[in-house]
C-alpha cells in the first residue's frame, strides 16, 4: 500500500463506482475502497444472509423463503428511466455488456382510493378511468402542445413562455383539472411535491418529454431494471474501473481521512497504514455522516427518507398481476407534502425466489412517526409476508472540495430513478477534474489510444 494514487474513492455505491470507472478511463490512477465486504454501499442489493445481517443481526433467514443466493434485495428503490442520463452513461461506457435489462411492467398512480395504470399509449389513454371524456380532450390538447413545442417557432407557443410562465399557468391555459395536474406532475414529471407548479414551466416540460420518450422506447413503462438487482450497476462500473487499472479493496476499515496543517487532503488511514493520493471522493458515511470529524462538519443532513422493504407472496393487488410495477401516491391524495412511492420487482428480475415479490414503500419523512407515514402505501400491498423498515438521513456536503481536495457525494434521494445520481456524478466530476464530463464512446477512446 505504499503506492501513491491520483484519486482514492471511498464507498462502492453507484455514484462512486460511476466516478471511479470514468476517472480510470480518463487515465487517473484510482484506489477504490469499501468498509463492507460487498459492493454497492447504500445502493447494494443484498442476499438474504446479508439482509438479515443488516436488519436482524440476531436471526437467520427462514428456510421457507428459499435459497439465499436467489435473492438480491435492493436497499434503495429506484428504476432506470429508459431515455435518461444513466442509460446514456451505461451505453457510452459500454458497461451494458456486463448487464442485462428487463422492462418494469407498468406504472400506476393512486387516485381516489384506487390505483390505475398510467396509460402507455393512446389506446390505453382513451380507456383510462383517470379522466372523463372532456378532460381527455383537454389533456390531448395539452400533450399536443408539449409535443409540438419548438423554441424557435413562436407559432407553436400558443402565447406561452416556458421560461417565464409557471407550470400552473400552463395547466390553467388548458383548463386541466387538479386530479389531472396531480397525475401529470407526479406520475409523469415525477415531482415529489407541488413546488414545481409555481416555478417556470420548462423543467416540467422537459421531464414530461423524457417520460413520454422513455415510455415510447420499450412500450410497457418508462423504466428498465437490471437482472439480479440494482447492485449490478455499481459492480459493472467497478469492473470498468478495474479494467482501466483501478485497484479494488473491499472489507477495508477506513479509520481516518488524513489532512495537512491547512486541512488539505493527504491520504486515508486504514489501521496503521496510510495510502496517499492527490484527491479523495467518497460517500457521506466516510465523512462523519452529519457528525464532526477531525474538528469539521463535512456533511449535513437535508432530510430523511423512510423505506420499507416488503416481502410479498403475490403481485401488488390492482396492478394487473404485473411482475413489476411502480405505484405513485401523489401527496394531495393522502394529505401529505411528499409523494409515497412503491417499487415492486420479482423473480422475473432474478432478485428473489419464485412466487415472491419485493415491494419497497418509501417517502420523505415529514413527522416524528415515519413508519405511520408509509401506511397508505403498505395498505395497497395486501398481506405483507415480512417487512424491513429503515430510516436514512440524506446528507449533502458542506463544501465543494476544491479547496481541500475532499469531494463528497450526496446520499440517494427519494426520487424513483437515477437522474439525480447522474447529476451528482456530473457535479463531482466537474469539481474533481476541473472540466465538464463529456461522455465518449469506449471504441472512440480506444481508437485514440
Amino acid at each position, binding site marked *: 500500500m505504499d503506492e501513491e494514487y491520483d484519486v482514492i474513492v471511498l464507498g462502492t455505491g453507484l455514484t462512486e463506482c460511476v466516478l471511479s470507472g470514468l476517472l480510470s478511463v480518463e487515465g487517473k490512477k484510482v484506489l477504490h475502497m469499501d468498509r463492507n465486504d460487498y459492493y454497492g454501499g447504500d445502493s447494494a442489493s443484498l442476499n438474504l444472509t446479508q439482509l438479515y445481517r443488516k436488519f436482524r443481526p440476531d436471526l437467520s433467514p427462514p428456510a421457507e423463503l428459499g435459497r439465499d443466493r436467489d435473492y438480491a434485495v435492493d436497499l434503495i428503490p429506484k428504476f432506470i428511466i429508459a431515455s435518461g442520463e444513466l442509460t446514456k452513461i451505461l451505453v457510452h461506457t459500454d458497461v451494458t455488456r456486463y448487464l442485462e435489462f428487463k422492462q418494469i411492467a407498468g406504472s400506476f398512480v393512486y387516485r381516489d382510493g384506487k390505483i390505475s395504470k398510467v396509460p402507455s399509449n393512446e389506446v390505453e389513454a382513451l380507456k383510462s378511468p383517470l379522466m372523463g371524456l372532456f378532460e381527455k380532450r383537454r389533456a390531448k390538447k395539452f400533450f399536443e402542445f408539449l409535443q409540438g413545442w419548438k423554441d424557435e417557432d413562436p407559432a407553436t407557443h400558443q402565447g406561452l413562455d416556458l421560461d417565464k410562465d409557471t407550470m400552473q399557468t400552463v395547466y390553467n391555459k388548458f383548463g386541466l383539472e387538479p386530479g389531472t395536474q396531480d397525475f401529470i406532475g407526479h406520475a409523469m414529471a415525477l415531482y415529489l411535491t407541488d413546488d414545481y407548479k409555481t416555478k417556470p414551466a420548462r423543467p416540467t416540460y422537459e421531464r414530461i418529454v423524457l417520460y413520454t420518450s422513455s415510455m415510447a422506447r420499450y412500450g410497457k413503462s418508462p423504466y*428498465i431494471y437490471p437482472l439480479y438487482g440494482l447492485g449490478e450497476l455499481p459492480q459493472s462500473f467497478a469492473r470498468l474501473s478495474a479494467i482501466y487499472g483501478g485497484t479494488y479493496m473491499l472489507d477495508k476499515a477506513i479509520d481516518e481521512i488524513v489532512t495537512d496543517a491547512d486541512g488539505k487532503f493527504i491520504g486515508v488511514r486504514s489501521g496503521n497504514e496510510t495510502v496517499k493520493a492527490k484527491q479523495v471522493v467518497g460517500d457521506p458515511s466516510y465523512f462523519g455522516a452529519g457528525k464532526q470529524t477531525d474538528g469539521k462538519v463535512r456533511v449535513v443532513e437535508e432530510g430523511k427518507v423512510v423505506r420499507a422493504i416488503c416481502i410479498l407472496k403475490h403481485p401488488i393487488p390492482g396492478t394487473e398481476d404485473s411482475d413489476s410495477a411502480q405505484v405513485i401516491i401523489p401527496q394531495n391524495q393522502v394529505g401529505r407534502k411528499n409523494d409515497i412511492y412503491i417499487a415492486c420487482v420479482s423473480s422475473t428480475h432474478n432478485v428473489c425466489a419464485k412466487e415472491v415479490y419485493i415491494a419497497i414503500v418509501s417517502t420523505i419523512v415529514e413527522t416524528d412517526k415515519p413508519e405511520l407515514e408509509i401506511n397508505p402505501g403498505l395498505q395497497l400491498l395486501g398481506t405483507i409476508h415480512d417487512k424491513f423498515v429503515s430510516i436514512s438521513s440524506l446528507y449533502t456536503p458542506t463544501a465543494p472540495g476544491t479547496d481541500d481536495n475532499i469531494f463528497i457525494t450526496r446520499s440517494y434521494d427519494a426520487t424513483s430513478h437515477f437522474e439525480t445520481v447522474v447529476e451528482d456524478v456530473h457535479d463531482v466530476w466537474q469539481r474533481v477534474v476541473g472540466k465538464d464530463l463529456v461522455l465518449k464512446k469506449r471504441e472512440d477512446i480506444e481508437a485514440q489510444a
Partner: protein
Amino acid sequence: MSKQFQFKLVLLGESAVGKSSLVLRFVKDQFDDYRESTIGAAFLTQTVTLEDGTSVKFEIWDTAGQERYKSLAPMYYRNANCAVVVYDITQSASLEKARSWIRELQRQADPSIIIALCGNKSDLAARRQVSEEEARKYAEEEGLMWGETSAKSGEGVTEIFTEIAKKLPKNAPAAGRGGPGRTGAGARSGVDLNKQANAQGEQNEQCNC
C-alpha cells in the same frame, strides 16, 4: 446449419500466472513478454469448432485484477459455465492460491460448473516447482480437468479450451445453458439498450476489448 452454443468462461488465479496471456494466445494467437497486469482488455470471445461440427463460443471474462485484494464482484462469476483456474508451474505458491479458488468455486458456484486446472509457463520447465504428478493427482481427487500450457509457445492452449468445449453440456438451446448471453445483442432476452441508441444497431461481436 450446425449447432452453436455460447458459454461464459471465467479465469481465476494469482496475479502474474498468465491468465491474460492464455486468453491472448487462445483468442489472437499472440504473446507478449512484457505484459503488464491486466488493463484495458478483459472481455473477449472465441469460437471453437468441434469434430462433429458443433461450434462453441466462449465469452471469456478476465479478472481485471479485482481478485488481488479479494474484491472480485459476484457479477464476475454469475452464470459462469466454466472456470479456468491457472497456476504457474514455476511458483508452488500459485498452486496453493489455485486450490483456494477451487474451494471457493466448489462452495459458491453452480455444482455443474466445469473447472479446469491449468499449469501455465510449461516452457519454463527448467525452473519447475510444481510437478505434473502432484497437480494431476490433485485434479483427479477433486474431479477437475487438468492440463499444462505455455502461453508463450502456445503449447497446450487450444487443447485445454477444446477439452472444455467438449465437456460442456449441449442440451440447451443455442444461446447456451440457462445463463444469459451477455455479449451479442441477439442472445438477450430482455431489452437491448445499445440497439436503440446507435442507429447502426449491429454490435461488434468478435473482440470486445
